[in-house]
């Protein structure tokens, strides 16, 4: 605003100066001429023509003088108006500018204060400085054919402790409810150490690095379906393993390779109940034999959003000293995943597929049936696709944003080589609809149609509410 006023002032000064100069010219100019005339010809009379000319000039100058005086008066008025801030359009812009600056400053100060409070309080919360919490809380409702419908709930916090830059302790304890009791389980416990930029060693009870589901997608706030893929739900590979692992990743040009190798107690053999005869068990916390199992996974990522993996696990499964002491198993798997946001479809697409083959040595079982032997193979696969319109701004009703809705589809297949009732073959379709309240809070609904070979179809309806910490 100052400069506008200055400009006004400048103009007025210029005008005043012009006026002054004019008056000067008008008054002083002719005077020396007259004097000069007087000097040279003191007594010479002024001719009428000369006088007339002088009079004309005088009248013209006077006219101009009056006009300038008027203009000067107008400018004075204008200046007074500007000073009073009347009709000053650019002032609005300036107010906005100043407001924006003030706002930014306020925000930045607030941020600093927030940060300082956080820095100041973190060490005071007892022991919090090296600890943090993760984990999940889940409530599920399921209504399946042939089974009574039920609610279920579990709570599984993860405690992370990082005593120094190389070491990390992870402990997950799960609390749950079943039939008429509460259960408590040590889900995960691992101490890991960063050996170098591309390699970490870990020991304890860790999620089995076989395929991708257990390690990456099983927590309920991550899993897009309220149910698990059949190959994992029916225990072709166990969720956790007890032992040691070596893992990491490294770039190869623009692509990336990641790996995990582990040496663990490994699976044991189930021959006690009719429905699970010949299957593998993975809760082998005190190994049933002297041979440890060995496994690994290698994943190749040509681009950050695409990964192709191969996994295997091999080991002795029979109890030492038993009939099955020589029985081994060899499990292999492949996995594929792709996840990316696309402008063209206004959202994120997420595709996963996994297949597992279990090949356990032939054995002779006895039990409530005649001695029985069969080629002990189980295998299965699934493919899951999900789409979430993350880039859409559409609203469904007042409070529901379309971008938080996710549509999921999964097809599962499971095959058992043993005779029934040792295991049934399944072909299962699942449709799911999720609503993401936050990135870590989800409400899921799912409907499954399970086509069981040689038996009645089984349908199921699921609802699940999950929070990840």
């Amino acid at each position, binding site marked *: 605003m100052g*400069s506008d006023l200055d400009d006004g002032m400048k103009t007025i000064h210029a005008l005043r100066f012009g006026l002054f100069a004019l008056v000067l010219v008008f008054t002083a100019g002719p005077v020396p001429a007259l004097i000069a005339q007087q000097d040279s010809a003191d007594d010479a009379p002024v001719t009428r023509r000369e006088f007339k000319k002088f009079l004309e000039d005088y009248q013209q100058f006077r006219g101009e003088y009056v006009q300038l005086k008027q203009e000067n008066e107008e400018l004075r008025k204008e200046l007074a108006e500007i000073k009073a801030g009347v009709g000053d359009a650019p002032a609005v812009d300036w107010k906005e*500018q100043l407001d924006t600056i003030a706002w930014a400053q306020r925000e930045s100060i607030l941020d600093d204060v927030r940060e300082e409070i956080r*820095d100041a309080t973190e060490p005071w919360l007892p022991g919090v400085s090296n600890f943090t919490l*993760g984990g999940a809380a889940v409530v599920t409702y399921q209504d399946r054919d042939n089974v009574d419908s039920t609610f279920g709930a579990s709570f599984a916090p993860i405690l992370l402790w990082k005593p120094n830059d190389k070491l990390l302790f992870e402990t997950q304890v799960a609390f749950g409810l079943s039939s008429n009791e509460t259960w408590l389980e040590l889900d995960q416990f691992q101490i890991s150490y960063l050996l170098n930029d591309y390699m970490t060693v*870990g020991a304890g009870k860790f999620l089995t690095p076989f395929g991708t589901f257990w390690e990456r*997608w099983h927590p309920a706030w991550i899993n897009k379906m309220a149910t698990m893929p059949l190959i994992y739900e029916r225990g072709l590979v166990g969720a956790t393993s007890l032992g040691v692992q070596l893992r990491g990743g*490294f770039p190869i040009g623009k692509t990336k390779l990641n790996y995990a190798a582990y040496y663990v107690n490994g699976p044991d053999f189930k021959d006690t109940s009719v429905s699970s005869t010949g299957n593998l068990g993975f809760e082998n916390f005190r190994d049933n034999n002297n041979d440890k199992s060995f496994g690994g996974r290698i994943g190749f990522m040509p681009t950050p*959003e695409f990964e192709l993996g191969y996994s295997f696990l091999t080991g002795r499964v029979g109890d030492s000293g038993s009939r099955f002491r020589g029985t081994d198993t060899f499990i292999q798997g492949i996995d594929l995943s792709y*996840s990316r946001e696309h402008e063209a479809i206004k959202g994120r697409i997420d595709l996963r597929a996994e297949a597992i083959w279990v090949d356990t040595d032939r054995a002779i079982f006895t039990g409530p049936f005649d001695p029985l032997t069969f080629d002990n193979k189980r295998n299965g696969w699934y493919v899951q696709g999900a789409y979430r319109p993350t880039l859409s701004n559409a609203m469904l009703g007042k409070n529901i944003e379309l971008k938080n809705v996710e549509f999921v589809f999964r097809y599962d297949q499971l095959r058992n080589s043993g005779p029934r009732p040792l295991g049934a073959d399944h072909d299962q379709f699942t449709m799911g609809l999720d609503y993401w309240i936050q*990135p870590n809070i989800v409400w899921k609904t799912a409907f499954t149609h399970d086509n069981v070979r040689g038996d009645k179809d089984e349908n199921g309806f699921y609802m699940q509410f999950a929070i990840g910490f």
Partner: protein
Amino acid sequence: MKTTWLTALYIITGLATVSVVASGCQKTQRSTEMTMTDSDDTTTVATNSDTPYRAGALLWSQNCSRCHNLRNPRERGDRGWDIIAHHMRVRGNLTAEEHRLILAFLQSAN
């Protein structure tokens, strides 16, 4: 977050100064003048001083959305992210370099 606001503050203050001068000299062209200065300033500041921050942000958006939804950087404080980034480095088989850049991003965006 702090850097972002500081940058914004610099840009706005710079803009304000430029417009004060510009409005004195070129009254008629003020509005166009301002928008041009605006975009110029933003790009220079961003490319000159924020390259590691940008690399971290890119790695974060690519890697941390692979297994689950991207978690909000504001969820945790610096210390919390330090521990979780370590956890996720092990879980996601990230390299030390990826870990470092992502952590730096999270700690400045929280």
